[in-house]
């Protein structure tokens, strides 16, 4: 199991750098916002690729591919896989179904609240709700939020949603760790240029750094 996670980190890095490379070459982004978006895009893609084939990865890739500004980058990164993926998973029907379901949920909730209001108006201020109903309501509300958060979660239910969420959390954590360490790598490489580490064990490296600096 450790082995698979190591490979995942390697593939993540490869994909991430490839994505950055492609996004930089395709359009020289001017503002920081654009750069951030391209970085985030390639990071998400890299995470999805490194994870493999799961429901949320496909949903994530599809979602990213549907946005207009990402399409060129995606094409560059995925290459011929882009066409295959888009053809298979760009079912607008799927998302229409989701939209319809959302609407029905909303209308149901509205009607339920209206019922509650009516009942409360009739019975007075207190609405007699049993604790299990309350708990169920809370849980339903939270499940809906979770569905919105996890990519592709809208279509899932119950235990499948939870397993996808579990997988997603694991991958997100790994992604965050990788980006953090990349960030730290850039930090260190820039800081070692500026200042030499004064500690004794690093004398040899200090010498090397001074050699290097003098060479420059």
């Amino acid at each position, binding site marked *: 199991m*450790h082995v698979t996670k190591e490979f995942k980190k390697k593939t993540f890095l490869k994909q991430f*750098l490839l994505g950055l490379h492609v996004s*930089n070459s395709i359009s020289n982004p001017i503002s920081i916002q654009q750069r951030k978006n391209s970085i985030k895009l390639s990071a998400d893609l890299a995470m999805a690729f490194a994870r493999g084939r799961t429901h949320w990865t496909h949903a994530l890739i599809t979602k990213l591919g549907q946005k207009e500004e990402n399409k060129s980058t995606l094409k560059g990164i995925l290459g011929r896989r882009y066409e295959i993926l888009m053809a298979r998973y760009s079912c607008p029907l799927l998302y229409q179904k989701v939209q319809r379901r959302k609407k029905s949920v909303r209308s149901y909730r509205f009607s339920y609240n209206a019922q509650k209001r009516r009942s409360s108006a009739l019975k007075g201020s207190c609405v007699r709700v049993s604790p299990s109903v309350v708990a169920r309501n809370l849980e339903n509300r939270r499940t809906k939020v979770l569905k919105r958060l996890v990519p592709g979660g809208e279509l899932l239910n119950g235990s499948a949603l939870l397993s996808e*969420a579990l997988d997603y959390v694991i991958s997100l954590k*790994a992604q965050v*760790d990788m980006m*953090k360490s990349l960030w730290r790598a850039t930090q260190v*490489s820039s800081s070692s*240029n500026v200042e030499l580490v004064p500690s004794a064990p690093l004398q*040899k490296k200090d010498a090397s750094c001074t050699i290097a600096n003098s060479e420059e």
Partner: protein
Amino acid sequence: MEDEIQPLLNPTTASASPSVATSGASFTALLGLPPNRAVELLHEPTFPSDPALVDRAARFSVFAAAAAASSAPSPEVSPPPPPPETAKKRKDGASTNGKAKVKKGKHAEEDTDGENKLPYVHVRARRGQATDSHSLAERARREKINARMKLLQELVPGCSKISGTALVLDEIINHVQYLQRQVEYLSMRLAAVNPRIDFSGLDTFLSATTMECGRLTIGNAKVGTELDQQQQQPVWSEVGVSDSDQMNSTTNSKRLQIQLQQNQLQQFWHVDFLNTQNHLQPSVWERDTVMGSTAPHVQREEQHSFVGPGAVPLLSFDRVNPVAPPIQSNQQLKMEL
């Protein structure tokens, strides 16, 4: 992988087997379905370097082992099931043993490895609970959901103390939102810090990062949570070997690499992380040029241009010194400890 989990398994099997014996395999049989699915689930996703998850995986593989162990008692369970079969037909809550027993055969999806999956899951209804098929299915579903919730609880930090589904869900949602926000924040930072990422030497960097992954993941391990050193080391030598295979390096440099990684590991655990960054970073670039020295000099030029102004000094250092000083610095690293 099993070897790594073995030491974790040993203290837990001792606790698991008595429970199997005492509860008459009913509890684990009840959990037999979800942990199997959970184990299946755990085997699919890649496994993060997180000791809590390692513990959890160990626990669930304990359940798998216990399930395998309970498959040995399941032959003795199956003689009692035929009498409860009739009890089920009676639709009676009380059984002869005073405990409602219903055998429910559920076919697992696939028998990939026999030690992990039982062909049939015998679910026993608890005392006083309804025994019709609907509620059974309902209960199985609920058990599945509860098992997943438990996994999520262990994954999200600070969730194990909370009881109740809604609050745990709340925590999970908060955690997911937090992680997503962190991704945004980190991408913003990365965007800000590198005004121009020059990828002219992309190929060499990609091949170099396969080694850097070793260092980076050590970093991850330290930053995330404390990891067992024994666990890491076999992984690292494995990674080192696979990396050097990719690089087509000489055996000398292979040994160097593994040595370096182990040195880094030891260093890593003895010294503060921030300091070791400075230790590790030069040694990674040294390693890069250990690789690079075998490759044509053109690659070194590319490495130069790639990494940018920050690491150029380090790389030029590497160009000056041949392979020998890295070996010396290795020994020096060893002696530092």
